[in-house]
């Protein structure tokens, strides 16, 4: 395997939790609700996976429980933001702090205990002989396949179906959507809940694919990267795939450059993803200066029926 293939494999594996969390964030924000709770949700997802997997020994049950628990967090977030019209930034930050605190508390009894298994891989022997594609897709985690599938499904859902049209309408102009007979609150609730569950799966992937055990603060802030990637991808699932792999690649590129004998300090290498982000944002901002930004217009604004804007 050459350098590029190895880097691609590393990028996809490092990008999977980022991608799942970013897709979750996109669903949330397309419906007009800001999602800043990603890190807390990922931690809750990770701890739930660990607890259930250790207690039952069944991975699929663990993933199911993860989806259920983080969906409850999504329900709470949407109740606060949609029904009570609370400040969405505050609610999101509360989710992060609550999630990290609660996961640390719940995780105490299982902390440091190894899981019975790691992320299961889908083995496709017929793919293996093909160069480049074989090593990348021949043995990939189920969760990675799921995330790639979701990119396609969500892209089609958002841009090619009437459900997606409703979703975008709710995110851009809930008043108009309401007039059209779209149930704004129901749509917001369902997408926030679905988004939270996806972010929970991102946490599950972190614990299954990186370290087969629960430890407090396992995500080391990865949820915040996902929060950024939602904006970086401009609320588009296809771009989210690219962005997640890009960040995944940068994550591992730093070490590869160290190993090539470069004398560039690793501190500087660690800064690269962020410097690149700023440069790309500047470039995109300049190129799209006369175009709509892609931000859902009603993002962060609670919808109150019959209220004038």
């Amino acid at each position, binding site marked *: 395997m050459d350098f590029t293939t190895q880097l691609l494999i590393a990028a996809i594996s490092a990008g999977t939790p980022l991608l799942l969390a970013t897709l979750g964030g996109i669903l949330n924000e397309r419906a007009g609700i800001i999602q800043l709770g990603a890190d807390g949700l990922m931690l809750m997802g990770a701890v739930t996976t660990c607890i259930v997997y250790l207690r039952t020994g069944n991975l699929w049950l663990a993933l199911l429980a993860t989806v259920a628990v983080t969906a409850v967090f999504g329900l709470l977030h949407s109740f606060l933001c949609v029904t009570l019209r609370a400040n969405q930034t505050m609610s999101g930050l509360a989710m992060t702090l609550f999630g990290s605190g609660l996961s640390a508390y719940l995780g105490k009894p299982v902390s440091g205990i190894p899981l019975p298994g790691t992320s299961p891989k889908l083995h496709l022997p017929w793919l293996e002989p093909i160069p480049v594609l074989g090593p990348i897709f021949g043995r990939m985690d189920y969760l990675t396949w799921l995330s790639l599938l979701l990119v396609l499904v969500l892209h089609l859902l958002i841009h090619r179906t009437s459900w997606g049209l409703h979703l975008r309408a709710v995110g851009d102009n809930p008043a108009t959507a309401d007039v059209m007979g779209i149930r704004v609150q129901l749509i917001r609730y369902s997408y926030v809940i679905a988004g939270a569950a996806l972010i929970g799966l991102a946490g599950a992937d972190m614990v299954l694919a990186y370290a*087969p055990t629960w430890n*407090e603060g396992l995500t080391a802030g990865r949820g915040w990267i996902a929060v950024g990637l939602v904006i970086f991808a401009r609320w588009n699932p296809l771009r989210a795939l690219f962005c997640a792999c890009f960040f995944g690649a940068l994550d591992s590129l730093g070490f590869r450059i160290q190993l090539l004998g470069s004398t560039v300090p690793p501190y500087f290498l660690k800064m690269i993803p962020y410097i690149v982000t700023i440069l790309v944002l500047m470039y995109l901002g300049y190129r799209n200066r006369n175009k709509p930004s892609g931000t859902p217009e009603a993002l962060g604004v609670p919808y109150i029926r019959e209220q004038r804007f």
Partner: protein
Amino acid sequence: MKKRGRSLTFSLTFMFLFAVILAGCGGNNAATTNTAATKAPAANTGNDGEAPVATEPAAEKPTVAFVYIGPPGDGGYTYQHDQGRLYMEKELGIQADFVENVPESADAERIITELAQTHDIVFTTSFGYMDFTLNVAGKFPNVKFLHASGYKTAENMGTYFGKNYEASYLSGIAAGKMTKNNQLGYVGAFPISEVIYNLNAFALGAQSVNPEAKVSVVWTNTWYDPATERQAAISLLDKGADVLLAYQDSPATLQAAAERGAFAGGNDSDMSKYAPDHYLTNPVWNWGPYYVKAVQSVMDGTWKSEQYSGDMKDGMVELAPFGNKVPDEVKQLVEEAKAKIISGELNVFTGPVSDNQGNVKIQDGQKLTLEEVLGMNWLVNGVEGTIPQ
């Protein structure tokens, strides 16, 4: 409508940068501060009934407090300190308090101050607490402070640490024997002396049984971040290394190695349970006996400030049990070297040793003093990598 959309974009962009910065400086901070803040009063309420002991003569059984950098459940560094605390509690019949997740910032000084008001002995268990401990020690002359891994002392403040490089050397012997292609990898935490002398000892150990062995090193600049450490391990495996040792607390390196059929070890505690068939061994801390001794000497009134350095001989530094697949002959080689280290016959840093630029750093027959080891800032010959400045 349009206008709001744009200002929203601005604020979101701003938030993104903010998020990126947060993540960049270790997103953990918010959470850790939080836990520490809620924990600190809890540690105090436990002693509500007692008057501030600092102003009174020491009671028969001293009150003891520990300051931890991580959670006791980290399965690594803090876990070992906590095991030491439990051992001490059992041996001496003392109930000790602890505060976990204390960041190495001004918060630490506040927490150490609060603990000093109600305790006779305070153990601060991470390097970054050094200056804060020193400041607080100046204010509470009747309280004894013991700081792990630092170099500053005071009348009522001592330090303690151990020569864990002795165990790194032994891990190196095992790695040097186990490698098939003579390529070893070291996942370094931070490029500081503590990690550098362990890396060097690992390389010297490997070369002592396998002169062809080379050690590639990458620096993660993390103590605990499984995702980053996994990437670092995989980049070493991709380069061809077939035996890895990591200095961080997470088993991420071991898991990555296990997936590729390679061998690996971690640090601080026995990590065999994470991948018994791919586990090598690694240095382990055993703080319990030292904690008993220190607290006992305060009780006896014989305590005085010192820079205590434990080793394999007094048991503060140990080697974890070998993994399932480590052959007996390798084990035997390691055991022989271990006996020599304990008897004093073998000193890890004995000349001739040159650095990886070709300069002679230890003359033939010369041995490094402990101070020279603790200030090490060069890599031995055979280590492929650099120390970032």
